[in-house]
């Protein structure tokens, strides 16, 4: 009798524990499956991101690459990438990553990067330091170290090909747009594109005597949409000044001085890009800003502003010396391929003024604009021009006509499913 009860007891408990054991085992399996699913999702996503990055790299090496990837084996999964043209010359990359039956998508929109997108762009920072009190608006890039002395503020994204160099442990620059080390962006552009545009539907000024002399053009933009201009060849005398509508002089907005210099001022009503090419002459390729050069409507305060100016100098852009001028307003994006924005004889001014720049400066190097003195324990400008810069955010989406492009695409948006 006792033996039977024992057997029944043992069997009952065995059954009971088996049921509990099964439940516990099932729970463990469910937990593992749960994490396995999460792992598959994250891995599929990583594969999709990898595919997108590989496609970006292909486009970086070859701007016209649209082949994509098809069933490319990668990390025990598979990559499929499509590259489509969007609009005129933008690209959309759609990357699918597949792993263990899970598919994830990454979609990226890229557009050709142009120099007007930069608030400040310098090839060489050299021994110049961005210092306390300096506020850089818009996108910032240096093909060099970004030298920081004290607490300069960078409002937009800041990229550098070398890194951020702090003057000392008390230096705390603020990067509101973040900072990243990237490949250098060559400060070069294909001048033929803008020259062809000028020939086709813009305005070309050049030495029509074909004697190889430098051409000088004086341009004054007028608020009514007209432009006054006169020119001289070499050391000759100026032609009679003419006044014409800007869109008649250069319907596509490109005013190009071949092997020459431009002297410019006034109030622009319309869109234009003025170009001074060097064509082998060291004295040519310069833009001289002789007085305030501003838009008819201020883009910072008037959203209806549709005026836009690009200044492209193969050599340099100079604000000419005028001790009686006072403050100067400069609206536009300035591109100086071999130098920068130069303030002529800045130390000869009797006092300091403001240079109110709305737009961007893209140059080979940073140039001094003022002479400073230590007053009350602070360095303050006493002669020349203080650099008061505001970025024209319209340049993020629209550039002045045929303004130079970099050789790369930039990521506009990145969507991960």
């Amino acid at each position, binding site marked *: 009798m006792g033996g039977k009860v024992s057997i029944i007891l043992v069997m009952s408990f065995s059954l009971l524990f088996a049921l509990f054991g099964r439940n516990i085992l099932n729970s463990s399996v469910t937990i593992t499956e749960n994490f396995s699913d*999460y792992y598959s*999702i994250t891995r599929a996503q990583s594969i999709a991101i990898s595919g997108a990055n590989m496609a970006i790299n292909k486009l970086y090496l070859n701007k016209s690459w649209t082949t994509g990837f098809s069933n490319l084996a990668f990390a025990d999964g598979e990559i499929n990438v499509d590259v489509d043209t969007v609009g005129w010359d933008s690209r959309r990359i759609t990357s699918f990553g597949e792993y263990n039956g899970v598919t994830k998508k990454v979609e990226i929109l890229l557009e050709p990067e142009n120099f007007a997108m930069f608030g400040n762009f310098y090839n060489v920072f050299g021994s110049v330091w961005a210092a306390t009190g300096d506020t850089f608006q818009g996108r910032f890039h240096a093909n060099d170290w970004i030298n920081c002395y004290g607490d300069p503020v960078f409002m937009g994204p800041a990229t550098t090909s070398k890194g951020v160099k702090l003057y000392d442990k008390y230096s705390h620059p603020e990067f509101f747009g973040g900072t990243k080390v990237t490949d250098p962006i060559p400060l070069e552009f294909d001048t033929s594109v803008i020259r062809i545009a000028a020939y086709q539907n813009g305005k070309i000024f050049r030495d029509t005597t074909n004697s190889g002399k430098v051409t000088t053009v004086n341009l004054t933009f007028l608020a009514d949409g007209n432009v006054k201009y006169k020119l001289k060849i070499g050391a000759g005398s100026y032609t009679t000044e003419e006044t014409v509508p800007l869109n008649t002089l250069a319907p596509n907005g490109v005013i190009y001085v071949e092997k020459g210099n431009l002297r410019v001022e006034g109030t622009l009503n319309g869109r234009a890009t003025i170009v001074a090419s060097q064509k082998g002459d060291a004295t040519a390729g310069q833009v001289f800003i002789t007085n305030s050069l501003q838009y008819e409507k201020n883009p910072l305060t008037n959203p209806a502003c549709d005026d836009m100016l690009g200044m492209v100098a193969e050599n340099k852009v100079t604000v000419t010396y005028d001790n009686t001028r006072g403050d100067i307003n400069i609206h536009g994006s300035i591109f100086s391929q071999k130098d920068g924005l130069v303030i002529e004889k800045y130390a000869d001014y009797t006092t300091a003024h403001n240079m109110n720049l709305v737009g961007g400066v893209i140059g080979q190097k940073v140039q001094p604009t003022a002479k400073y003195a230590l007053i009350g324990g602070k360095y303050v400008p006493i002669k020349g021009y203080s650099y008061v810069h505001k970025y024209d*955010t319209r340049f993020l989406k629209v550039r002045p006509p045929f303004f130079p492009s970099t050789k790369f695409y930039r990521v506009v948006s990145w969507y991960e499913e």
Partner: protein
Amino acid sequence: MGYTTILDIVGATIIGGILLLNLLKLNENVYAVDNATGHDVNLQVEVVNVANIVDGDFNKIGYCSDPMNMNDDPKVTLADTSSIKIVFDVDKNGVYDTVYYYVSDLNALSGTPNPRDRILYRQVNSDFPFIVSNNITEFKFQYLGALYDTLSTPLASPGLATYIKISFRVEDPFAFDEKYTEAFWRRLTVTSKNLKRN
């Protein structure tokens, strides 16, 4: 009945009692383990669900389906230790939305035995807050600047946040013998490609 028989009965009772006690203890242990693993399954599923939602949102910071509406305004507009407001185009309609993650105080779930659990909310613009999880016992953010320097919270200028570390812990609202099972998830850094477009 002899002396030996009484000894047998007493001995059998003691041994049977010990055996019974062991069986009862074993039963209790099995129940505890079953309870814990059962709750663990729920927690693990919960943590993955919350992680998927958080992943999905934080991967999209700064994204807007209409590139013309994209701007360089800060995409993190509130940055505190356990709450954050991020900006992206949630419904892909070309307009930025604000997503607000925050946790309730402890009183919200004072009816549960677990003294630490809270509710994690996700609110889009001014819509009614959506309960992401009601098992949250820890929901933390840490913010890093562009130079990987840790920023103290709450950030006076949330736009300075370049990298975000997220972690959260979920626990059972009920537990056997107050041994609450828990699950922990963290993502070391969020570097959404749209957060800082450079």
